[in-house]
């Protein structure tokens, strides 16, 4: 199975995502430069963390115009699994592939630390190997992870079960103290209506080996492998083919 890791100028977790997929999960992985116009036949697309274009102006604001984003959109529209991590999540928001926007952290500071997130839904390609309600210990590293959307949008997200991860205590309780950045409804990650595009602020690729503090993030990447290989998301594998066919 092949993962494409998109590299924007300023991406800096691209190698981390690649390492996790290739060396920890043992899957095929390839970097795709943002100026390219093909996802090289990937089954899963990862938009990695970092500071695309320096995060100047707004996080993800300039990256959304990269040529590869048209292809990512086509891939997503065809049902292919897309994971945006941190800056990648911000790019997905700016590109309109996910609803809402990011504000500065409530603390107005960059924060790097381990947090707990609860898996709210397991019917996405990135949570299918998780248990509903499972609490994962995963690091965050961001200055702008304070997720915001208009109240009616948030309500719709909740109604459609699009909130995929929420910041909680170790015991899985949603409390204000467990929320590191002030995001609405403690949202840490969400999916689109079709459920194949997922964005989250925490870094699962940084939590794939116990030696570096946690292996809880593996469940998220393993979900993608399981979903695609089991055909649980038929659109996914087919997505790449559909895109290829359409060209």
């Amino acid at each position, binding site marked *: 199975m092949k993962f494409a890791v998109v590299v924007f100028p300023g991406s800096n977790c691209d190698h981390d995502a690649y390492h996790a997929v290739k060396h920890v999960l043992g899957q095929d992985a390839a970097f795709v430069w943002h100026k390219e116009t093909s996802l090289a036949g990937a089954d899963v697309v990862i938009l990695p963390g970092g500071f695309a274009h320096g995060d100047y102006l707004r996080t993800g604001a300039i990256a959304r115009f990269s040529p590869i984003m048209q292809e990512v959109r086509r891939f997503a529209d065809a049902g292919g699994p897309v994971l945006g991590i941190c800056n990648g999540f911000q790019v997905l928001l700016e590109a309109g592939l996910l*609803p809402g926007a990011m504000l500065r952290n*409530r603390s107005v500071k960059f924060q790097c630390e381990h947090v707990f997130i609860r898996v709210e839904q397991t019917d996405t390609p990135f949570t299918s190997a998780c248990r509903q309600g499972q609490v994962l210990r995963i690091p965050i590293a961001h200055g702008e992870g304070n997720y*915001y959307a208009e109240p009616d949008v948030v309500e719709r997200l909740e109604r459609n079960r699009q909130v995929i991860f929420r910041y909680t205590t170790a015991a899985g309780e949603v409390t204000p103290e467990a929320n590191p950045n002030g995001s609405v409804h403690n949202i840490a990650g969400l999916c689109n209506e079709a459920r194949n595009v997922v964005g989250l602020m925490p870094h699962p690729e940084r939590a794939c080996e116990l030696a570096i503090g946690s292996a809880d993030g593996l469940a998220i990447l393993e979900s993608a492998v399981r979903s695609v290989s089991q055909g649980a998301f038929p659109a996914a594998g087919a997505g790449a083919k559909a895109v290829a066919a359409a060209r």
Partner: protein
Amino acid sequence: MRARVFVTLKPSVFDPQGTTVADALHTLGYAAVRDVRQGKYFELDIDAPTSDEARRIAGEAADKLLANPVIESYRIEIDTTAEAVAR
């Protein structure tokens, strides 16, 4: 010609930076400052024959790039007197 673009968070959106600035001003003793909102300010030097044209270009730039309509709104002013200075 110079276009000034002001980008501000919509009133309904919480502004962590503005709130922090307001808190700091209160700590410094400026109780009279009731509220602070922080936004962005851009100066665009535009080669345009008319101020309408400059406004149109600045407007497109703001729509596409400078502001995120989910959380922000913007306002444009055109300064016809400003010389576009090469920097």
